[in-house]
């Protein structure tokens, strides 16, 4: 599974953090990194555990997460 976070779009886990909240596998965590706008980005811990439920992709207000099956 490829889980991509579009860092330029993400508005940060401080005001948002929805991805962290909804992933049933708890795959999103605080990366500690800031993007250009100063937002703290999430990161993925273990993409292989992903069950492709797409909850993260749907819940993201910035459409900043894509979940893609690796085969592509």
């Amino acid at each position, binding site marked *: 599974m490829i889980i991509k976070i579009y860092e330029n779009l993400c*508005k940060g886990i401080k*005001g948002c953090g929805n991805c962290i909240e909804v992933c049933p596998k708890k795959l999103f965590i605080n990366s500690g990194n800031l993007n250009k*706008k*100063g937002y703290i980005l999430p990161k993925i811990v273990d993409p292989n555990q992903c069950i492709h439920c797409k909850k993260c992709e749907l819940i993201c207000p910035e459409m900043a997460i894509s979940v893609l099956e690796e085969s592509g």
Partner: protein
Amino acid sequence: MSSGKVDNEQKIRFCGLGGMGIILVSVILGKAAIYDGKNALQTQSYGAEQRGTKVKSDVIISDSNSILCPIIDKIDILIALSQEAFDFYLPDVKKNGLIFINSDLIDVNENETYVKIPATSLARKLDNEKVSNIIILGALIKKTNLVSSNSIIHSINNTITKNNREINIKAFETGYNFS
């Protein structure tokens, strides 16, 4: 041309990001000027669209008692609390203008003669990161004597809610005594 009686006006800009208390600190300064018997005026950039991004707040302090024109082109003193805002507003500073920065958050060329205050670290020492704005204010007053310290204390007391007065006064003193 200036925005009033040329000589006795000081134009001060505070800038940073939303949540840093930019407007609060400028209001405290302006109010203190009033208490000192001066005239003052404060404006801020205000926009429904400017959430979470940079904020600026300008204070004009004048010895005369006449009305001030709120238009500002060049500023005498810049106080910057974030890199982005600093970069953006630097060009507005007059030649020989004074510049105060939170050196914990803003990278500048070593040789620049800016007044560098590690406000965040100092604030952390007071166990309250939020007061870095007031710490810089302390440094500003020490350096410029724009208004009296007494008036600042008075202004803090009249502006800030009871529970937070003490820590802010402490922060002011910290900034004032820094260097």
